[in-house]
């Protein structure tokens, strides 16, 4: 009996152990490659790069020296541009291989090959938007002898040299957890990466918002709530106003549902409305002329706000090709160049313009269920078909899609057989893959912007630049569609006529731009680029972006005529809030009015007193901001209750500038809470109810106000999540200074300043910067998240950009030589 039992156990141990060891089971990855002490995940315990290493890269024309400084930044010294790019690909792969592949797979809609059906919806979203198809088409369209193709190939050479030389023990740990192995890098991956950036930054949603809102409250109200221009005007391009202008006016009350919009809601359903977090998803940049700086030198600051992740989106690097290129800054793993940074002559940074570069067209098709043709100007045109196959971990087919394309772009349909196509600049980007390398050769601000304008089509960016001669400039750069006069960018168009098609793109002279303005400074914080009174053209600025940060930075810049780099750094985490300044008095005034009318309650009085005691600064130790934020959420929710869909979710949220506009009308129909059918609320009733409800909810969740649970640094703490969402590799509960609407609008959702940089341009360049993460993608490396403490405190590292290796004391060296790579 015992013998039989032991035999059964032995068979189970052998077969089961081998099976789990080699193939894994369920979510458990194959154990052998994971636990193997030599070639498995334990290899990742060998954390830091060796002090001296040598490697070979195919197609390298001459040796390249890479010297790492103590911050883990590679300084690449090459003899030509292509070799510098090869070396960049190599060092990025060396530090961030998993991230390289993960980002490119996500963009290409190939995550199912790692995660199976779990990733299907994410992959389908990418492919149905036509992003991978567009990347492949654009790659194929590059002439074989073009410089763009050569640079993409050079980058791939570098990445693949690292991959080919990898022993399994050196695979990033995430591959072990996924049961996957690194895939060689293809030049098209860079195209995928840029397409995904376009999706992140330029996927305008105005048609969907408009249709969803009009279907609930009618066309007039929808247009009033989501106007083409923001009601608070503090444009990027100086308008001489010396302060914000409030173009406030009456807001049309909610009306009956719009029948046409209701018809369209199934065809273009609204995307999930994430309300406040999206408004934190924003960037700043500003530049100051020498005459307004203490040292008489131009200053530039930039802090692009994006989804923060570990490893960080950015990777810091320095490329030197004597006489040709000397550029320092941050690149995105997969991009062959420095995206934001500085040279000896210029410094630059970007914010998102948010222009409307996407239009939808309702199409007439030959067969509602399986269309092959669509109608255009009375004739039937063939649809282009593309079959998308999603594969699983073992290559099995997980799903198959047939995509259909009109001349405008990909089509989608509703259950009723109606079809809509999409024209989107991101799908035909005309982006030069060498534009960042070319721009880094510019020696003046104007030359930098002109180079970018020649090669950069999407996503629209407010590009700010300063040069060492003292010039500052900003230009919103992208392909902005010229629409027929009869069409509006936020309405769905009739696709059966070519007359509704775009008629080209704005000429360069029409781009919003400014060079050396009289006011001596320039600033952008995602606000509308141009004053609509001066330039009424429809640019379709994303009204999601509120003007508060722009108001704040402009106020700070106007008030200081002797700006220093230290001031610029401090402003990047300035805790002051124009939004709180604008809204808080309305709450306290409503409480005062309630008291005067004998309608006050102890809860209201104490809430109002707590709010009044706030200095309106989002500092980690503050205990008042949390009440204001909760009250704002309540106010938003109670005010826009008419915009709730049948499932109880708000289909879209008007900007808080629009909410401020509404506060001027104490008896607007929007104040009435439809959930209380026997009462008609007015403004003050909603404000006081919001305040009390906010206090109650906070007490329930965090205890009484003075109990220590309301500290902003705890409640408003942000997080930085690992790419796979693994807690152990993430950083949570990061107390930061700043909140919604401040210049440092880090959010609990993990959006925030992904890179901060300050540059002073003069005879020599001085620069400071940091990002929330570290150079290494290895979670146990000392450089994985070593920069977070400094970043959290709003401090910056000094960025050291030596002209040559003589002036650098390296912490590690890497010598790259021509030759066949491999183990």
């Amino acid at each position, binding site marked *: 009996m*015992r*013998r039989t039992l*032991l*035999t059964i*156990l*032995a*068979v*189970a*141990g*052998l077969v089961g*152990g*081998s099976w789990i*060891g*080699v193939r894994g089971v369920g979510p458990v990855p194959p*154990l*052998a490659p994971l*636990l*193997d*002490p*030599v*070639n*498995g*995940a*334990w290899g*990742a*315990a*060998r*954390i830091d790069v060796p002090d001296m290493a040598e490697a070979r890269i195919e197609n390298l024309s001459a040796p390249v020296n890479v010297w790492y400084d103590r911050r883990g930044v590679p300084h690449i010294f090459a003899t030509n541009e292509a070799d510098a790019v090869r070396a960049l690909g190599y060092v990025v792969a060396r530090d961030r291989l998993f991230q390289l592949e993960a980002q490119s797979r996500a963009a290409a809609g190939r995550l199912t090959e790692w995660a199976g059906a779990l990733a299907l919806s994410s992959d389908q979203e990418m492919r149905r938007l036509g992003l991978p198809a567009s990347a492949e088409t654009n790659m194929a369209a590059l002439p074989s002898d073009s410089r763009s193709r050569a640079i993409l190939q050079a980058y791939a050479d570098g990445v693949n040299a690292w991959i080919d030389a990898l022993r*399994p023990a050196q695979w990033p*740990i995430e591959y072990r*957890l996924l049961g996957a192995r690194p895939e060689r890098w293809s030049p098209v991956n860079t195209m995928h990466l840029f397409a995904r950036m376009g999706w992140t930054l330029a996927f305008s949603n105005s048609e969907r918002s408009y249709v969803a809102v009009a279907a609930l409250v009618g066309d007039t109200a929808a247009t009033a709530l989501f106007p083409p221009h923001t009601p608070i005007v503090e444009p990027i391009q100086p308008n001489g106003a010396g302060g914000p202008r409030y173009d406030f006016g009456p807001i049309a009350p909610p009306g009956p549902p719009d029948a046409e919009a209701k018809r369209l809601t199934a065809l273009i359903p609204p995307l999930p409305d994430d309300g406040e977090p999206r408004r934190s998803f924003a960037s700043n940049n500003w530049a100051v002329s020498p005459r307004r700086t203490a040292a008489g030198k131009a200053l530039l600051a930039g802090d692009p706000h994006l989804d923060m992740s570990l490893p960080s989106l950015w990777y810091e690097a320095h490329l030197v090709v004597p006489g040709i290129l000397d550029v320092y800054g941050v690149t995105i793993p997969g991009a062959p160049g420095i995206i934001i940074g500085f040279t000896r002559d210029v410094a630059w940074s970007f914010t998102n313009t948010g222009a409307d570069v996407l239009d939808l067209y309702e199409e007439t098709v030959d067969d509602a269920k399986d269309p092959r043709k669509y109608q255009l100007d009375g004739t039937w045109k063939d649809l282009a078909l593309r079959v998308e196959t999603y594969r699983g971990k073992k290559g099995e087919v997980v799903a198959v899609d047939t995509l259909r394309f009109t001349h405008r772009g990909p089509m989608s349909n509703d259950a009723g057989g109606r079809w809509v196509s999409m024209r989107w600049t991101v799908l035909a980007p005309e982006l030069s893959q060498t534009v960042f390398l070319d721009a880094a050769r510019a020696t003046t601000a104007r030359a930098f912007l002109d180079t970018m304008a020649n090669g950069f089509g999407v996503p629209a960016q407010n590009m700010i630049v300063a040069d060492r001669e003292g010039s500052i400039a900003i230009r919103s750069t992208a392909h902005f569609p010229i629409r027929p006069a009869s069409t509006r960018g936020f309405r769905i168009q009739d696709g059966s006529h070519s007359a509704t098609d775009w008629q080209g793109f704005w000429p360069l002279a029409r781009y919003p731009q400014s060079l050396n303005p009289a006011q001596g400074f320039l600033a952008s914080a995602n606000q509308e680029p141009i004053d609509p009174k001066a330039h009424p053209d429809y640019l379709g600025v994303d009204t999601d972006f509120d003007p508060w940060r722009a108001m704040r930075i402009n106020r700070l810049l106007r008030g200081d005529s002797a700006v220093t780099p230290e001031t610029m750094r401090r402003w990047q985490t300035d805790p002051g809030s124009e939004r709180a300044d604008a809204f808080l008095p309305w709450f306290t005034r409503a409480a005062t009015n309630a008291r005067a009318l004998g309608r006050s309650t102890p809860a209201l009085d104490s809430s109002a007193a707590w709010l009044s005691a706030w200095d309106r600064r989002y500092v980690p130790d503050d205990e008042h901001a949390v009440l204001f934020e909760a009250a704002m959420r309540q106010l938003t929710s109670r005010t826009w209750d008419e915009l709730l869909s049948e499932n109880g979710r708000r289909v879209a949220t008007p900007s808080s500038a629009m909410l401020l506009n509404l506060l001027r009308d104490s008896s607007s129909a929007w104040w009435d809470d439809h959930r209380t059918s026997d009462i008609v609320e007015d403004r003050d009733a909603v404000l006081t109810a919001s305040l009390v409800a906010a206090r109650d909810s906070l007490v329930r969740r965090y205890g009484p106000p003075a109990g220590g649970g309301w500290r902003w640094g705890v409640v408003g703490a942000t997080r930085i999540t690992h790419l796979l969402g*693994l*807690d*152990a*590799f993430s950083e949570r509960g990061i107390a930061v200074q700043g909140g919604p609407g401040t210049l440092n609008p880090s959010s609990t959702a993990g959006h925030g300043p992904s890179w901060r940089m300050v540059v002073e341009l003069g005879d020599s360049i001085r620069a400071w910067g940091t990002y929330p993460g570290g150079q290494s993608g290895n*979670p*146990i490396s000392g450089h994985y998240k070593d920069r977070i403490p400094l970043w959290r405190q709003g401090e910056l590292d000094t960025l050291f950009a030596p002209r040559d290796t003589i002036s650098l004391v390296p912490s590690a060296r890497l010598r790259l030589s021509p030759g066949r790579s491999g183990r």
Partner: protein
Amino acid sequence: MTILLAGTVTLVIGTWLGFPTLAAITVGLAIGLAWPLRAVRAAAAAGLLAWTVLLLMAALRGDAMATLAGSLGAAMGVPGWALFVATLLYPTVLAASAAWLAHLVSPRRPTFVNAAAPNQPT
């Protein structure tokens, strides 16, 4: 002792060459066939010893084993020490299981049975 050492060295080399599962099974089968009386104990010890040696070598080289175990364990929802245990158990279980099955068919297996020496390895 010789068989134990031979099994350990073979498993270290097999793992080094990238065949950890195959090496563990092969060592277990070889010990089970060649030395059926002490097969399970010897194979298990060889498995345990081989991967312990490899882990120690990495630690002595300065690799951050404990840090990795903590992070990786947390990522997998288990304590860090469990990763060490799982690592050491893997070759041990495979080698011991293979040894047991091999000893059953070993030509060198004793054919008699008595009360003092039950017909399985001890």
